[in-house]
């Protein structure tokens, strides 16, 4: 009897060891990259465009979760930054330390990006920024593990001032030096950075800057700012904001009778047409906005032939999530494209050439990315500034475009190489804000 018992014990033990061995083998066989994805799904930034970015990134990650990359399973772990920098930092650390993600991807707000990038670098993890644009995230930081394929904030500011400068004489009938411009912005890292670009561009063009001012995005009243603008009488207003501060400004500007020739926005809230239309009604007509080009507005002929089907897929998937949207926001394509670049250019190279998905392999792979113009859905190429450069980790080939909303459609109007139509400038007579 005791012998029988010992035999049963032996069999049980053997089975347990075998099971354990199989589990270990399975673990070893299941190669995967775990990606922590952080956007704002609640709080004011969510409706301001962050949720749309989340949708864009998720569409792409879901596609690659089905197929995997070079034998690696792609697993995304999503977190909500709640529109708060402290929550973004905590979630980033939690994903790295507890969820053991291999890298982080996403980030809408520059106010979050600046501290999170520093923390991620400190933890020697890899960070792929799809959205936030402030130069302060990377400028003079010399980060090794933080990369941003997205254009930087000062590029946004420079692009719009260049657009106005090149059109001042022909469209507005004024020499740039006679053009009165105002630069207003939310006072976070994003707004300040874009406004610096605006200021530098305005000085370069020789504009007469009649007002430059920041405000808190949560300010309950902007009437004093509007009164000052009325007093300063700018021809062109360069505005950088989230939402709902943009709609508050637009509404109070209408109510107080502010007049100008052009309103030029810079991404974020200006990139969500549906909300602008809902808040400002017809006053959104002829508003300009600088953003990376919407992937649905890209010139297909100039793109790598493999990209149009991907763009269509993103559009189809987005329509399933948000049916009946008049203009698909550029935010969706921005995150989808930048995530796609990571999944098709960085990740395969890291696995094949650098032996895995650890931060150093991903970093080496990112630095080797060399995509010419037209190689991404956003039209620009990708090549990152390397170590030692003032903007290490920034894509040196990215650029935004200037679009204009006209009758519920958006058109690229600048640069000329990408333009889909002539800009309507100045605001036509009879429109709410027209100073003609």
């Amino acid at each position, binding site marked *: 009897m005791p012998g029988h018992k010992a035999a049963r014990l032996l069999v049980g033990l053997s089975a347990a060891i075998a099971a354990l061995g199989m589990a270990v083998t399975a673990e070893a066989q299941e190669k995967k990259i775990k990606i922590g994805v952080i956007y704002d799904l609640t709080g004011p930034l969510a*409706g301001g465009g962050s949720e749309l970015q989340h949708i864009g990134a998720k569409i792409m990650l879901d596609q690659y979760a089905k197929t995997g990359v070079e034998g690696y399973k792609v697993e995304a772990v999503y977190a909500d930054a709640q529109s708060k920098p402290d929550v973004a930092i905590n979630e980033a650390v939690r994903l790295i330390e507890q969820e053991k993600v291999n890298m982080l991807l996403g980030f809408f707000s520059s106010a979050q990006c600046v501290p999170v990038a520093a923390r991620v670098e400190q933890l020697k993890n890899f960070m792929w920024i799809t959205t936030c644009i402030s130069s302060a995230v990377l400028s003079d930081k010399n980060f090794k593990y933080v990369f941003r394929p997205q254009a930087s904030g000062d590029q946004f500011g420079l692009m719009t001032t260049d657009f106005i400068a090149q059109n001042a004489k022909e469209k507005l009938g004024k020499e740039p030096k006679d053009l009165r411009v105002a630069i207003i912005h939310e006072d976070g890292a994003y707004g300040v950075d874009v406004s610096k670009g605006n200021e530098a561009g305005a000085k370069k063009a020789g504009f007469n800057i009649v007002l430059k001012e*920041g405000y*808190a995005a*949560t300010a*309950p009243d902007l*009437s*004093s700012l509007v009164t000052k603008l009325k007093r300063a009488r700018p021809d062109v207003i360069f505005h950088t904001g989230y939402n709902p501060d943009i*709609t508050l400004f637009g509404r109070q500007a*209408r109510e107080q009778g502010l007049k100008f020739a052009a309103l030029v926005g810079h991404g974020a809230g200006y990139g969500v047409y549906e909300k602008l239309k*809902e808040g400002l009604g017809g006053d959104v007509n002829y508003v300009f906005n600088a953003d990376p080009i919407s992937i649905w507005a890209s010139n297909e002929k100039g793109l790598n032939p493999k990209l149009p089907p991907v763009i269509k897929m993103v559009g189809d998937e987005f329509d399933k999530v948000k049916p009946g949207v008049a203009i698909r926001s550029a935010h969706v394509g921005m995150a989808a494209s930048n995530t796609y670049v990571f999944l098709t250019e960085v990740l395969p190279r890291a696995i094949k050439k650098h032996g895995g998905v650890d931060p150093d392999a991903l970093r080496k792979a990112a630095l080797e990315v060399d995509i010419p113009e037209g190689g991404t859905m956003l039209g620009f190429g990708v090549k990152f500034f390397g170590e030692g450069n003032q903007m290490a980790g920034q894509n040196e080939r990215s650029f935004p475009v200037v679009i204009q909303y006209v009758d519920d459609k958006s058109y690229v109007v600048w640069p000329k190489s990408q333009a889909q139509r002539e800009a309507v400038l100045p605001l036509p007579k009879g429109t709410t804000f027209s100073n003609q």
Partner: protein
Amino acid sequence: MQGFLDIFDIYLLEAVVNGILLGGVLALLALGLNLIFGVIDVTWICYAELVMIGMYGMYYMVQVFGLPYWVAAPFAILLVAALGAALHYIVIAPLLTAPPINQLLATGGVLFILQSFATVAFGIDFRNLGIRLPVLAIGEMHFSYSRLLAFAAALIGMLAIYFFMKRTYTGTAIRAVAQDRQIMSLMGVDTKRIYIITSALGGALAGLAACLLVLQYDVHPFVGLSFGPITFLICVLGGLGNFVGGFIAAFVFAQIISLGGLFSDLEWGYVLAFAFFIVMMFIRPAGLFARRS
């Protein structure tokens, strides 16, 4: 000298009037909060979130169910009044004798519950009523009718509350309870009923504010963050519980914000207003118009 005189232009006058109109908005918000504190001695930290729920109520009734604005407004006021009464019955009543910090934390908890509830129930999108009221133009100056309406409502609301308190039996009972709740219950006054009525009244004022704010601002779950702290500061500046003090403090605060923002950066207007608040707290810790104890 000429440069100094240049600032006395039409835009200065516009800023002053806009400051008065902003004061109307803030006074309207402070009215209900002060009433609650004056009678029940509890500060509803979640007051601005009640306003947010009222704004959502207006949005759904007008935009989704197609009710005219003037029909929807009384329903929204009733909705928030009921919410105010429920808040007292469920959260405040069990804590009436608890230390003030417990009451603050409890209403602070309600703040997060209401924000989260709105996020789940209504989503994160900004909602807009889609009503664009005309603008009153006097020369180069332009004023929003929605703000004029809020200003008028604040004025009428304060007068109505004043006469209600002074001229009605219930108002007298409310004032009596505010002075000494223990004695009044010994004299046979049903303090529980008075508290419920006061809470409903405070809620109704939040509802009224919601009906007017929804004409000026987008609705989203976190809209209360733009108004909550500033409303609380105004109440403290005017003397917590003193609704006349709160009314005047709202205009003082709004003028500092408006004129400060005109003469300097907009943010400096807020800095000056908060600096004024801090200085006044040193000089008159119980507020500009503190109640006599």
